[in-house]
């Protein structure tokens, strides 16, 4: 407490103020300043947040998206209509959207579809078998995008739920550690995950090596929908684990015991008492996963190959071919869909947050004895553990392995390549150390900017009526096409805006990069802090206010300490998101020397071998994990 008080600039007086929970006795010299901060601090932070989000998010996005609705100075719906009536984009819906009034024809088409179902007699393992022949439906790019997002969501939930079950119901060595690192995969840069997946699931990857040792055949997964869905689960199952574990830990066990004492069996009690309390959390996690995978881009691009294209991938390709209007129109439709889903998500999250808060610490030991492992339940958990190792540890370990091997022999040559580049590289070439340094500097800056932004947004939107609309707007960085944001940053900030006279306003370089990182990161701070804030008893806040504490003071002294764990989680997110950010970093760096670790990994990838890139990726993994631990440890001191 003391440290934070003096760090806040209030001197010893503010410590006293904190100790008395809002009693304001301030020295005469600092009084005016302190009063101003007290009164306007919150508003000023909110204003600054709005300014940053406006300049590095809304302005660039509007700049690009307006091309979809304004052509030649006039408002038009033509580009969006062209997207909505193109079967390539919307599949069979194109005709419906193009001729909404031709009801008869559409009904005819549906009837035609239904009559196309056939039963076919065939054989299955030598036995006669009936097959259902389903008529093909053209789904278009949007259909495929939703389909792969749905598959990814189902797999993420399937992989995530057992993890949440184990983490919240069993006690074992390393449980707390595991619980805090579960989120790590979620924030790893796509380029690194892609390298890991190559090394793990490639034709000559670790998995096939292992299967070969077991005498099993090869699996060929790269550049298929399967690997994309698996990679999405790698990213999002941890998210499901996190939200579900949080909910599970707050299930009031007494309600279960009551149900049992009233005669319900364990299964009945679980289904009727526990599940309803978990469902909102699972649904929010699933919805969030669907939104993320609906907007997926780099994973499909790098692991899926060119034949799998989501809407976002297509937006990228149209931009590359300078078809800006079409790209903007596509992105408008995409954004409307994802913003709608975000709104839905926020509503669910509120409901999830309003659930009761019991807390449990009576977990069963996972391994009470070696014999106990032979029960079906424990065996299932062991099997699940093996799956976790293959899916989560496998890619990362394979990347590390790839960084120290060359054609099957152990070597340090890839690290030597990096070292040589560091020592001998020309000034315009990408070197490892500046990349590490820049990443850490941006991460620090993002932490300092994004955490206050996130807290202020969480506080503001939760106290207002209609706050959820504002919150949706504030959450938009999560649900708007990253490609569009990138192009907007390029055109709006890098190319600059005309000012009166012969001048242009140009915004590039480190500060712009840090601002862009902060905008990418603060929604995660909001998500970490917001739900905890809503759980605080309003009476606590109101009594502080009644005793004379200002809004800012109440926030600092009453609310934040109560949600410290959320703030720390948000800070860890902010650091990790900044380290992993790629697009706006390369765009705003403008070829300068402000490249970061993921940028270096991507550049080293262009070397006909995975070696140097996996060495750089390993360094990045180490730095990211270290930063995570530091935030967790330092932050942990403020937690209650």
């Amino acid at each position, binding site marked *: 407490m003391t440290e934070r008080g003096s760090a806040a600039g209030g001197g010893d007086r503010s410590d006293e103020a904190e100790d008395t929970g809002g009693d304001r006795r301030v020295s005469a010299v600092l009084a005016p300043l302190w009063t101003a901060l007290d009164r306007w601090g919150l508003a000023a932070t909110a204003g600054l947040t709005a300014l940053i989000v406006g300049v590095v998010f809304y302005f660039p996005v509007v700049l690009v998206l307006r091309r979809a609705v304004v052509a030649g100075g006039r408002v038009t719906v033509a580009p969006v209509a062209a997207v909505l009536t193109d079967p390539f984009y919307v599949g069979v819906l194109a005709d419906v959207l193009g001729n909404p009034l031709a009801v008869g024809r559409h009904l005819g088409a549906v009837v035609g579809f239904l009559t196309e179902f056939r039963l076919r007699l065939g054989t299955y393992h030598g036995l006669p078998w009936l097959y259902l022949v389903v008529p093909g439906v053209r789904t278009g790019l949007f259909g495929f995008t939703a389909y792969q997002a749905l598959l990814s969501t189902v797999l993420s939930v399937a992989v995530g739920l057992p993890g949440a079950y184990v983490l919240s119901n069993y006690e074992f060595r390393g449980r707390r550690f595991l619980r805090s690192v579960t989120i790590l995969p979620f924030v790893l840069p796509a380029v690194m995950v892609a390298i890991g997946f190559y090394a793990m699931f490639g034709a000559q990857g670790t998995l096939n090596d292992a299967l070969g040792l077991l005498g099993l055949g090869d699996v060929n997964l790269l550049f298929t929908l399967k690997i994309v869905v698996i990679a999405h689960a790698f990213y999002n199952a941890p998210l499901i684990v996190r939200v579900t574990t949080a909910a599970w830990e707050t299930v009031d066990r007494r309600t279960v015991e009551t149900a049992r004492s009233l005669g319900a069996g364990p299964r009945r009690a679980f289904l009727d008492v526990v599940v309803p309390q978990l469902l909102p959390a699972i649904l929010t996690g699933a919805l969030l996963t669907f939104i993320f995978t609906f907007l997926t881009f780099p994973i499909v691009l790098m692991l899926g190959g060119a034949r799998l294209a989501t809407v976002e991938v*297509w937006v990228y*390709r149209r931009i590359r071919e*300078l078809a800006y209007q079409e790209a903007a129109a596509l992105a408008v439709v995409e954004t409307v869909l994802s913003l709608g889903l975000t709104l839905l998500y926020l509503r669910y999250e509120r409901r999830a947050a309003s659930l009761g808060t019991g807390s449990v610490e009576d977990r069963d030991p996972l391994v009470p004895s070696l014999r106990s492992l032979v029960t079906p339940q424990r065996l299932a958990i062991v099997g699940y553990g093996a799956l976790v190792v293959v899916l989560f540890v496998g890619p990362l370990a394979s990347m590390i392995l790839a960084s120290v091997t060359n054609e099957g022999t152990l070597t340090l040559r890839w690290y030597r390549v990096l070292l040589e580049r560091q020592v001998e590289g*020309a000034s315009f070439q990408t070197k490892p150390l500046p990349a590490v340094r820049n990443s850490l500097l941006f991460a620090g800056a993002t932490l300092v900017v994004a955490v206050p932004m996130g807290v202020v947004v969480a506080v503001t939107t939760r106290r207002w009526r209609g706050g959820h609309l504002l919150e949706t707007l504030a959450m938009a960085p999560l649900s708007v096409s990253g490609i569009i944001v990138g192009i907007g940053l*390029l055109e709006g900030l890098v190319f*600059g805006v005309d000012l009166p006279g*012969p001048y242009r306003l140009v915004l590039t370089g480190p500060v*712009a990069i840090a601002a862009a990182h902060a905008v990418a990161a603060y929604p995660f701070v909001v998500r970490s802090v917001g739900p905890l804030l809503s759980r605080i008893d309003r009476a606590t806040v109101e009594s502080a206010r009644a005793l004379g504490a200002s809004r800012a003071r109440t926030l600092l002294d009453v609310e934040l300490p109560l949600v410290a764990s959320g703030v720390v989680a948000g800070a860890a997110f902010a650091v990790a998101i900044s380290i992993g950010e790629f697009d706006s970093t390369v765009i705003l760096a403008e070829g300068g020397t402000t490249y970061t670790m993921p940028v270096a990994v991507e550049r080293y*990838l*262009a070397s006909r071998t995975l070696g140097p890139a996996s060495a750089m990726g390993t360094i990045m993994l180490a730095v990211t994990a270290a930063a995570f631990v530091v935030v967790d440890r330092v932050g942990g001191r403020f937690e209650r």
Partner: protein
Amino acid sequence: MDRRTFLKTAGPTTLAATLAGCLVSDGGDGGDGGDGTDGDPTDEPGTTEGGTDTQGTPTATPEPDLEGTLTVATYSAFVDAPSSSPGPWLKDEFESQYPDATVEYVTPENGLNQYVQRRKQGAGIDADVYVGLNTSQLITVDENLPDSRLFADLDRGRLENAGAVKSELEVDPRGRAIPYDTGYISLVYDESVVSNPETFEALTTSEYAGTLLAQNAQTSDTGRAFLLWTIHEFGEDGYLDYWRNLLDNDVRILENWDAAYGAYGEGERPMVVSYSTDQVFANRYDQDMTRHQVSFPNDQGYANPETMAVFEGADEPDLAYRFFDFLLSPTAQGEIAERNVQFPATDNAELSAEYDRYAKVPPEPVTFSYEQLQGNVEGWIDDWGREVVSR
């Protein structure tokens, strides 16, 4: 000239010194077409770096200005490939020949599009030359900027070495771009797994099912060249049928050459669309040649000459011409060929005997001219892109 020198010094300084935002003058980009009358140097914001010699007295003599920073825009592999790239050698050598000059490379993430969009939006262009333009990129420039010029006419009389450039490599009917190297798209395969397919048709047979790695023609130059090659072979009306067969035969299409060649290197597939100079690189690193066999289907190879051009309104036109002349010199041509793993553009390049041995030339080089591509290439690629995704 003096104003240009001043602006060139002032521009980057302002940008570099300001962390967040800064005001730059519209005039600094040379977007005015180089007449130099639209502004007074004293209006310019920012300060000069050294403060010396930036506002020297105007002279009437055509003495070339060989002092200053030449900003070279190019693709990143040209200067910053982890393996080898000609950029560093060219910079060092040029700077030692012209002690008052500095070469600065910029490699925008979106390549040439960056400058097309800048010109479209009226934003400044802070580079003097672009190195790495092929025919279809020149068409991209012309179709997107019909009313303004991105590149200046090239006065070949000012290039002593221009005469040595092979005439069959010339691609720009408007005389802005001059070739500096060329490559032939071909197939590279692992002969321990597959044999030389010899023909395009063979690639659609079951023997070659699931063997080929190609690149996305929408986003990769190599992929685009391969697609154009198939259009050259099967015609505008036949190429999509051929590609349907290729797709049914499980061709893998990755986003760019790096990804495809990387996947080939990792043993994902035994054949990849790449360049006929593949063995030059393999030989340099003593790699096993069984994995670096070059195939020319139908005895052809698609030629993809790379050219360079001076930006309209460049700040350092004199240095730009000297740089181009230097790039076309026999020594530099040899170095570019070896380090960029491409063929020289001139007939008098100094090449090692090893290079000649390992760089393969197709029996019948084919390519589309500017006129043949103009008005067509965009549609061809769009149709192909939709076919690939829908199938």
